[in-house]
């Protein structure tokens, strides 16, 4: 009895309480104090909190994660592999994995630092480079890139000399500074087999593959052995601010945009045309813009009469109003009259000037060219005809190229204005590419993207390499000069100026525009570099600031609520007593 009295005195209550009640009260106070301390410490911390995971949404899943087994590379390859050299923002070739590399026209000497390592810890040596190049030659669809490579000499453990069969810039410009030419651990690939290596490849990039959930996402984790010599990144080692990069595959445009609006992804690639204007005004999003090194164009089947008549092909070029197209595409493209883009090596502004002067928008000129070729509108139906046949073609439009898909009807109406009837047929782009190669088409919407014209234009405009319908022996000869020859940039520029003139005269294509590629990035992501020519993401210096505001863990807030509730109940109980 005396004990109870004592306790009741402590709590200054007139009524006695039991030991159990006392224990509960003590527990509540202690827990409350801890939770309170936790709460105040969490809101009084002034330092910036960083999110440890970067989430990137891309439209399409890669075929394979091994760069040597794919026909197109994506963001994952850029993070898992490391280019030997790289491009800076002026398209100069600068060191990346290699400390330096020298090119003298007939050979390339690559120097690695002594502690260069793959993400699995294996050393990167001259021998490793030779093995990787050998593997690329046999495995990659682009294996013929190394046709000009005679051998890889091992100068010493960390220096390799790539000896070329003839003077050629091909490997130096098309493999050394791009991800396709990045080194892979060929020994590791041999051990696990190519199929397994395709799921979990080993490179030397800033991140390595942790997990690939088919159809959904790839999770990358930091490669702590990463080292780079890139001059434009400050942090030359692993990025300690970002532990994981998740790359999600979200094919549906609306879904991808909703995710960035909600802030559930940090970076979105492949921003659709319709969304560009909206995202540019979104205060939470920063837009990066870059010109694609390539052109979107209509390919004309030159083997199919009457398209073999140059006047008709020229008429197409006069009939297209490229400014109207750019307007319809809300300024997300740059009107283009020629066969190369401003982001190309060897491009000069005088090219576009020449193109503009050769083919200004001029429907009357188009009509007179058609009339010259014998096509006039004799029956007044608005379509020109000859021998009772209307001038009518089918135009293949790729459904998976949103910009071309969108302007299909506009092209149709522009051609109709000069009296050419065009029927639109929509197909998957891969199918169109295949059909144009088999000359099984009339007009086809096409595009290309590659930074060195020598690495792409011969495949499109040379009569043998590409085997399309265009064939001009003089063009072939000039293309071969750069394809296999050693051209520095001024010589390249001069050569492509000559070629541009010939292409404009022959008009095998109707060039339309150059794409602007957009990358939408949440404002919280800082220190990101988006570099030409392919708008490659460099996240070495990136940090993701965690959302501001008081961040209390759900358990802490639950606990706090419980304490609050308990206190309230206790106080109310006391009141009733008195």
């Amino acid at each position, binding site marked *: 009895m005396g004990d109870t009295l004592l306790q009741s005195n402590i709590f200054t209550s007139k009524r006695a309480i039991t030991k159990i009640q006392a224990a509960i009260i003590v527990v509540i106070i202690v827990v409350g104090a801890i939770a309170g301390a936790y709460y105040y410490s969490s809101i009084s911390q002034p330092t910036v909190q960083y999110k440890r995971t970067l989430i990137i949404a891309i439209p399409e899943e890669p*075929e*394979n994660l091994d760069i040597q*087994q794919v*026909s*197109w590379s994506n963001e994952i390859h850029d993070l898992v592999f490391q280019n030997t050299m790289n491009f800076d923002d002026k398209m100069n070739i600068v060191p990346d994995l290699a400390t330096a590399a020298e090119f003298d026209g007939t050979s390339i000497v690559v120097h690695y630092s002594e502690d260069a390592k793959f993400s699995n810890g294996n050393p990167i040596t001259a021998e490793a480079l030779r093995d990787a190049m050998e593997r690329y030659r046999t495995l990659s*669809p*682009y*294996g*013929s*890139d190394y046709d000009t490579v005679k051998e890889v000499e091992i100068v010493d453990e960390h220096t390799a000399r790539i000896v070329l069969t003839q003077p050629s810039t091909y490997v130096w410009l098309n493999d050394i500074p791009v991800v396709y030419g990045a080194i892979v651990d060929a020994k590791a690939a041999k051990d696990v087999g*190519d*199929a397994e290596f*395709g*799921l979990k490849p080993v490179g030397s990039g800033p991140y390595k593959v942790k997990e690939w*959930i*088919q*159809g*959904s*996402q790839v999770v990358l984790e930091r490669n702590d052995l990463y080292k780079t010599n890139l001059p434009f990144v400050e942090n030359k080692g692993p990025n300690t601010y970002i532990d994981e990069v998740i790359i*999600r*595959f*979200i*094919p*549906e445009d*609306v*879904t991808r945009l*909703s*995710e960035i*609006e*909600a802030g*559930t992804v940090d970076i979105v690639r492949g921003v659709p045309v319709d969304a560009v204007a909206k995202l540019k005004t979104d205060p939470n999003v920063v837009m990066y813009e870059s010109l694609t090194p390539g052109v979107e164009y209509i390919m004309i089947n030159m083997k199919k009469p009457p398209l073999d008549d140059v006047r008709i092909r020229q008429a197409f070029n006069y009939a297209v109003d490229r400014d109207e197209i750019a307007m319809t595409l809300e300024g997300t493209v740059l009107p283009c009259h020629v066969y190369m883009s401003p982001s190309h090596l060897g491009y000069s502004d005088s090219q576009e000037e020449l193109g503009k002067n050769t083919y200004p928008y001029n429907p009357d000129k188009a009509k007179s060219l058609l009339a010259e070729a014998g096509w006039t509108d004799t029956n007044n139906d608005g379509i020109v005809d000859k021998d009772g046949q209307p001038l009518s073609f089918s135009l293949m439009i790729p459904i998976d190229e949103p910009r071309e898909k969108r302007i299909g009807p506009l092209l149709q109406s522009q051609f109709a204005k000069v009296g050419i009837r065009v029927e639109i047929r929509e197909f*998957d782009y*891969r*199918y169109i*590419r*295949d*059909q144009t*190669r*088999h000359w*099984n088409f009339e007009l086809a919407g096409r595009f*290309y993207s*590659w930074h060195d014209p020598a*690495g*792409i234009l011969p*495949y*499109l405009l040379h009569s043998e*390499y590409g*085997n399309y319908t265009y064939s001009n022996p003089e063009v072939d000869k000039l293309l071969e000069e750069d394809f296999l020859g050693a051209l520095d940039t001024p010589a390249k520029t001069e050569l492509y100026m000559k070629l541009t003139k010939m292409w404009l005269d022959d008009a095998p294509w109707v060039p339309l525009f150059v794409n602007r590629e957009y990358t939408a990035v949440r404002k919280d992501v800082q220190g990101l570099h988006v570099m030409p020519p392919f708008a490659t993401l460099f996240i070495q210096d990136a940090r993701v600031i965690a959302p501001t505001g008081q961040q209390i863990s759900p358990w802490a807030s639950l606990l706090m609520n419980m304490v609050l509730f308990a206190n309230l109940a206790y106080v109310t109980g006391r009141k009733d007593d008195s």
Partner: protein
Amino acid sequence: MGALARYAFKKVLIGIPVVVFVTLLLFLIMKQVPGDPIRMIAGERVTQERIDELRKSWGLDQPVYIQYFYWFAKVMTGDFGYSYVTRQPVSYLVWARLPYTLELTFPALVLSYVFGVPLGVIAALGRGKSRDYVTMGISSFFYSMPTYWLGLMLMLVFGLYLRWFPISGSTSGFESLVLPMLTFTLPFIAFSARIARTEMLEVLGEDYVRTAWAKGLPSTRVILRHALRNALIPVTVMFFLDLPWIIGGAVIVETVFSWPGMGSLLYKSILRLDYPVIQGVVFIIAILIVICNITGDIVSATLDPRIRVEPEKA
């Protein structure tokens, strides 16, 4: 039960040539599709010699019947070959997606039955009353709504604005399943409800139901035992016939929500002319169709004693 087992066994035996025939037919049709798979995969900067080399290494230079024979012989040993595009084993690609497909379709199946049938019964019993109109109005709404639109609306409302569920993806466990599952299931519930209502109305007009009422049986007994049991037979059969199409046909839902199921795999493979993957997926769907048909037969036989599993001896 012995009769049932024998019946099932016979059906399975018939099913085998069906599956073989389906794959053969598909193989022949695919080879008629214009377009060269190697060209489709390879980018622009690939020489013709390289293309020929690749074609040879995939065995595409062989005559069609030999290609089919090789494929079939390998499948018999459980080897579905390698995808042209991803260079991964087809079995790996399919097995990676199958769980997601089942996660999406199995609840759809169960829920459409569990909710659809009672809704249909309620509507039928209250024919011409407000509850009939309300149930049928709502189910018409969901049944006729394009999946694409329904999916986007659910995503915008519950994902973007209310933030109750993840907008897309498959990696947040059950939460990420909710929206795609709803998009997929709501039209099915509506469909089952409509069929259940029609069947129920038909059965309620039958003589034996009238007799049951006249006998003075309690209404629950009349409805559940006499009417519902018979009305369920067509619903059940329909159900099992639909099942395989559900598995292959969730492409839209999968695309909208970035859900890694088999539908999108099949769709993508067709666009890329990735023959081995198409063959693999269709093979599995063909097997599922056979299994579902057999199961459907057996279930309806147990529900309806008039359907005999064995023909009567003459």
